[in-house]
């Protein structure tokens, strides 16, 4: 089944065409990396998939359902989960409170006003399991704004995974992380069940080529090429995109 399909998606901001005729299909369980130089439109592409931006033209299908005009939260409830390039956490709350928010988000208790949250044992239990599973147990009562950058990055991923998504979008999950932390993130993503489809933006080539089955190269808002990592490594156009073409100089 096609998890995600983009059909000629364009997005422009005023006169700037950020995305142009993007067509893309992902199958269940696929791991795909989107690479490309700065300003290629990677994050814009993510935002059009998750609904932060509405595409200027074209259509987006999730699980073969047209979601082009759906608001963010409806898409999220269909099974999309995302992390953000600039970390987006509940900075004034503790680690466990952050995780509880993500866990309760699909537990149908959210509109309850008449009962304290602490009485929902399964929600609390799930959140504690997650926090413990990622090695945050000792830090569970720490205010998020006091955590290190790396920890915030990891918590960002925990929140995205807490929702048991079917499609996970990771926007530079390893940027700013120390080597050991990168290792943690990569192995956690590799350990994910193949029921979860993963689309990630990554600048670290080793990470991208290690995690992905397919790599899509984006440049100036257009797809340059896509294929398995081995092929991308050899592709001369990819080198051009990253390194520029040799200009004949006469002098």
């Amino acid at each position, binding site marked *: 089944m096609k998890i995600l399909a983009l059909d000629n998606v364009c997005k422009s901001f005023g006169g700037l065409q950020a995305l142009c005729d993007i067509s893309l299909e992902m199958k269940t369980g696929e791991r795909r990396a989107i690479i490309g130089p700065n300003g290629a439109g990677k994050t814009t592409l993510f935002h059009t998939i*998750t609904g*932060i931006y509405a595409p200027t033209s074209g259509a987006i299908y999730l699980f073969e359902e047209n979601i082009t005009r759906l*608001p*963010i*939260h*409806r898409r*999220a*409830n269909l099974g999309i*989960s*995302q992390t*953000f390039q600039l970390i*987006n*956490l*509940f*900075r*004034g*709350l503790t680690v466990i*409170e952050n995780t*509880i*928010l*993500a866990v*309760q*988000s*699909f537990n149908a*208790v*959210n*509109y*309850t*006003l*008449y*009962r*304290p*949250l*602490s009485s*929902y044992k399964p*929600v609390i239990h799930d959140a504690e399991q997650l926090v413990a599973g990622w090695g945050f147990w000792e830090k569970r009562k720490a*205010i998020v704004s006091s955590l290190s950058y790396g920890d915030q990055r990891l918590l960002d991923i925990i*929140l995205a995974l807490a*929702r048991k998504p079917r499609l996970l979008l990771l926007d530079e999950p390893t940027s700013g992380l120390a080597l050991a932390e990168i290792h943690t993130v990569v192995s956690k993503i590799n350990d994910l069940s193949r029921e979860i489809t993963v689309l990630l933006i990554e600048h670290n080539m080793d990470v991208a080529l290690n995690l992905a089955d397919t790599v899509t190269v984006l440049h100036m808002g257009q797809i340059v090429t896509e294929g398995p990592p081995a092929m991308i490594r050899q592709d001369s156009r990819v080198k051009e995109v990253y390194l520029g073409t040799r200009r004949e100089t006469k002098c």
Partner: protein
Amino acid sequence: MRKWAAVIAIFLGLVFLPQFISTYYVNLLALALIYAIFAMSLDLVFGYMDMPTLGHAAFSGVAAYAIGIFSKDVLAVFWLNFLLGIGMACVVAALFGLLALRTREAYFFMITLAMAQMLWGIAIKWRSLTRGEDGISSIPRPYLSFLPWSLGDASIYFYFVLFFFIIASIIMYIMVRSPFGHVISGIRECEQRMRALGFNTKLYNYIWFIIAGCLAGVAGNLLVYYNGFVSPADVGITTSAEGFLMVLLGGPGTLIGPAIGAVVIVLLKNIISGWTTRWLLFIGLIYVLVVIFTPNGILGLVNKFILKKRVTT
């Protein structure tokens, strides 16, 4: 444990206090509790949603007018009037929320003010309904046939207010600790992430705002029976700003803070106005000092120096 001991101590204190103080102070205490409900409901918007509002008196004021008009001109049945007052507050909150919640921060501040001032204008100009600037006077306190006492008595009315104060406090206490309340604090911290987590943030904010308005209506109901009088000032900026100051003074983002702020302001206002008519000057001075020296209000001071606790919100 210590927290509950304190709550029970305050409760017992409130129950027995009227036996030991003069009628004047019993009345003052009732007024303080009414404003405490108002300030706590305002803090649901200001502190918990982080949406500074300058139009909260619209809700309490409309409730007061609804009771005043209905019980004088139509039918004086207590429970009917009371529900009508709360209902009107809810309706106005639902209408205001539709527009106001599209904005944030300073814009929210201004639009809530503008909308409340519209009601103020109506209260002044629609004389046939509201009696204009004169206001509606001699609104009788309700007669409750199932009670052996008359609410006209100061300490009986105090217990009447205390009853609603406790109910409203319990409602708000549970609200802020419910899953819904947790969602509200999530939206306050990062709305975009909440949407990405699948929350319909606008709907949550809207419902929360309406409930806060309804609870302000309870305060308005009690106030109109307390004063026996309602005038355009009750929907105007002065009342809203006073509530705002109570929240700031007590400690925003908590429930006990605004209640403390309300008691302090009501007492100060009466004490200072006893020896000068320029009491607003002193209230203003207190406001300036609080904002500069203790942004977390009296509760922040208590936590810092007495409980040695870090304030999280």
